[in-house]
């Protein structure tokens, strides 16, 4: 056997600055399928005593190609991979509209208490009274904070909550004997809004925004008049996706109500007004709350979320199953139509929603209290406006007339003539050690850059961020174009070929054929 083996990770084809392809702490990690082995397992299992199987001829005959790693190998695999991720625990994560705030570890510990983590959704109700109480209390907090009548706790994420709110509206219209088919959505809305409306068979009609970035009540009235008697609802985000508070919101709600429609508010940006403004006071009929945004449950690389949906008195009777009621004999869980006193429109998910997220969000609310939640909203707004004030002289604001709320929107006007696009600017931020802001959203602004620092950032952190952005702006204006177009240069990967990925999708690992093996051996 020779000591000169081919590189074991040949599939990575590293451009070798080092023999291994590694760069100090940035260690290349092969796919599980390239390093795992079929003959081992990282879990010990006792072999059962002799028994008579009862699989009735359904035994697995198909091959099961699932390689394993022993525990030490698995730990290295995942820890090395984890080190290729940016995270809030490493630095500011200013993704606009995503509210990447600190995730308190107390909440993780609480969610793992056996009394919450190890209870089954269908245990006798008498054995889960504490869980029902927690969900009920969490719901009561959400109703108080939003000034709304009731809450459907089961939606699994924001888009699922939108679906819940819009289904409630559809059910309420049906109960009124009306078949309204139009939903108004401003052009700046999250993509989930029109997608949700369309999923429910509504026709989406756009509402234009004013030059100052907000929606005028007059514009809503005009569109409503053009679709008289057809408008089921308006879906409006407030503060909106440009980071502005909708100044006409009360009037808009009145106009929609007068015409027999409902007001769905996208609650993605609730963090800006938590404890400061109650959506219920503005005339909202339904609003989902992203517990993974405002209430800090971890994003986990893309979920899980939770999207409890608060409802006005008019929509409350149609809230989906399950419902939790407080009675003198304890908490009651209503799981079936037969047991419901109202008229639920149906069921959105099996079981009772994202309990693990309720525990974390409730712990967050208790920790902050009324004063802390108000302070969090104020600090979030303060931080966004501070970033804005420190950058407004070098970057460009599409909507300078209003103060920003919890996020500040810039456009790419300031990059004109530099040959640097918004995307390049974002990628250069990666090299400076920051996660970029949200880019190219909202769609109503050219080359949008939406920065949401959240209340978790200290002044020092913001100053560092601002200084880096200012340096980058000057570099772009100086003609240091390569710094941007070649970025990122220092990340675990440089820019990836997304077009190629979509054109010829490779969505799973397959064993290399003889050609690839030969190539790897070279």
């Amino acid at each position: 056997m020779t000591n000169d083996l081919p590189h074991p990770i040949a599939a990575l084809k590293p451009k070798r600055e080092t023999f291994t392809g590694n760069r100090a702490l940035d260690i290349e990690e092969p796919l599980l399928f390239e390093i795992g082995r079929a003959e081992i397992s990282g879990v010990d299992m006792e072999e059962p005593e002799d028994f008579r199987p009862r699989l009735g001829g359904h035994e697995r005959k198909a091959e099961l190609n699932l390689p394993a790693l022993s525990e030490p190998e698995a730990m290295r695999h995942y820890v090395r991979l984890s080190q290729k991720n940016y995270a809030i625990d490493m630095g500011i994560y200013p993704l606009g509209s995503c509210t990447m705030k600190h995730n308190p570890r107390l909440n993780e510990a609480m969610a793992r208490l056996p009394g919450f983590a190890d209870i089954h959704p269908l245990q006798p109700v008498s054995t889960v009274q504490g869980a029902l109480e927690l969900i009920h209390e969490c719901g009561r907090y959400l109703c108080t904070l939003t000034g709304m009548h009731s809450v459907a706790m089961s939606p699994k994420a924001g888009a699922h909550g939108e679906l819940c709110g819009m289904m409630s509206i559809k059910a309420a219209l049906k109960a009124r004997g009306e078949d309204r088919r139009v939903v108004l959505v401003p052009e700046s809305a999250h993509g989930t809004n029109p997608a949700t409306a369309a999923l429910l068979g509504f026709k989406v009609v756009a509402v234009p925004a004013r030059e100052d970035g907000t929606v005028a009540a007059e514009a809503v009235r005009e569109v409503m008049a053009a679709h008289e008697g057809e408008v089921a609802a308006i879906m409006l985000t407030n503060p909106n996706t440009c980071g502005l508070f909708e100044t006409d919101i009360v009037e808009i709600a009145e106009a929609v109500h007068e015409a027999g429609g409902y007001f769905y508010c996208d609650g993605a940006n609730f963090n800006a007004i938590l404890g400061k403004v109650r959506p219920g006071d503005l005339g909202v009929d339904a609003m989902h709350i992203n517990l993974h945004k405002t209430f800090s449950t971890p994003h986990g690389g893309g979920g899980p979320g939770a999207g409890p949906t608060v409802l006005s008195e008019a929509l409350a009777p149609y809230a989906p199953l399950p419902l939790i009621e407080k009675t003198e004999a304890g908490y009651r869980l209503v799981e079936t139509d037969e047991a419901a006193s109202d008229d639920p429109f149906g069921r959105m998910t099996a079981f009772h929603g994202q309990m693990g997220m309720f525990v974390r969000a409730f712990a967050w609310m208790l920790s902050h209290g009324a004063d802390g939640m108000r302070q969090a909203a104020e600090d979030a707004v303060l931080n966004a406006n501070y970033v804005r004030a420190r950058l407004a002289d070098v970057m460009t604001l599409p909507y300078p007339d209003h103060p920003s709320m919890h996020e500040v929107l810039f456009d790419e006007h300031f990059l004109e003539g530099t040959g640097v696009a918004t995307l390049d600017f974002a990628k250069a931020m990666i090299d400076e050690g920051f996660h970029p802001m949200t880019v190219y959203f909202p769609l109503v602004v050219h080359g949008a850059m939406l920065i949401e620092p959240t209340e978790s950032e200290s002044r020092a952190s913001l100053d560092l961020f601002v200084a880096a952005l200012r340096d980058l702006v000057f570099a772009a204006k100086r003609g240091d174009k390569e710094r941007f177009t070649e970025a990122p240069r220092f990340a675990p990967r440089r820019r990836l070929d997304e077009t190629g990925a979509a054109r010829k999708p490779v969505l799973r690992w397959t064993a290399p054929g003889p050609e690839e093996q030969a190539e790897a051996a070279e």
Partner: protein
Amino acid sequence: MRYLPHTAEDRADMLRAIGAAHIDELFRDVPEDKLLKALPELPGHKSELDVGRQMRALAAKNRAAGEGPFFLGAGAYHHHVPASVDHIIQRSEFLTSYTPYQPEISQGTLQTLFEFQTQVCELTGMEVANASMYDGSTATGEAVLMACRLTRREKAVLSGGLHPQYREVVETLALMEDDECLCLPPDPRGTEDILADIDDETACVVVQSPSFYGQLIDLKPIAERCRQKGALLVAVFTEAVALGLIEPPGAAGADIVVGEGQSLGNALNFGGPYVGLFATRQKFIRQMPGRLCGQTHDKDGKRGFVLTLNTREQHIRRDKATSNICTNSGLCALAFTAHMTLLGAKGLTALARANHAKACRLADLLAAVPGVEVLNEAFFNEFTIRLPGDAAEIAEKLAGEGILAGLPVSRLEPGCGLDDLLLVCATETASEEDMESFADALRRALA
């Protein structure tokens, strides 16, 4: 407040830099009468110690699965999860990162999703899988919508062996979409004749195996009839571990396979968060809901991963998207894939065998109790028993003795004449003593 870094001085300095005299100047777009001065209804902030005390008091009012004999399944399963899995998902870089929209600094999440998709394909016997859905029930709903899009038909036929709450989720979605659902009556023994209900207007047939009642179902003839009629077979499972031992739905000819992945890596959590698995054929990928992770390479030719085929999704397609889903179950998918990686085929098969062995032993013990009948002859780790009396009352009585005996079917299917049925599950966590004490308590309760 321990989570807020600013001092009063910081705030004052920053307001000065902004040019505002007071924080409420920044809230000046809010109608004046709508701006709250305080929130008197809620208490003030609390220390970590106080919050912990309050939360623990709530947790103490619940009876945890590990506290004694436990035999509940029905879509959520009590399994042992290796300690390393929880450590992995609590890595800051996984826990506190967002959806991987900037792939250059998200390769950790992306590579684990690619591995997850591959494992789900292997487990289900399908060609492609997405990066997860909210849970098994919503995945089933999305599968039906996808089948209606693909076939341009509007009728779904739902087996009587489908989890009742999965059925309700599908019905709710279908009702809103003006699609039609034909729901077969509850089918504890798996004897329904679903073939007769598949016709030229059927978009899809939804069949769960092992069924809600535990019965293993032969999917092949159903897939065959679907092919003849131009309908699609949506195969559902709620217990992913079963697929370590039984023939995967893909091998039987299923077109879309959806299921609950909670069993691997994820705790019971009172019903959520869980992780929905969604797999199908390569030719259907452009109609799939949810995020997909794909392999590509970077500017230097190094292999890397990205979210791909985004033109199906809401943030690009808006009202033309295949689904409105955005956030999925990323961290639960990571828990699933980490547990699966530790198990491997060998470990998964052993785990599945251990489950099946326990369930067979429990079935024998319960069948020996006078008056008890085991309804299923082919099952994996759960099965339905008929009791000589009201199952809910008996289960409540056993709960009083510290034994969580199983699910009275009438809880989810009231008014169907199924009051005497109890759905019972035994995983690898059930000990011989637990099972014997269950059988003894049942014997006493029925005496």
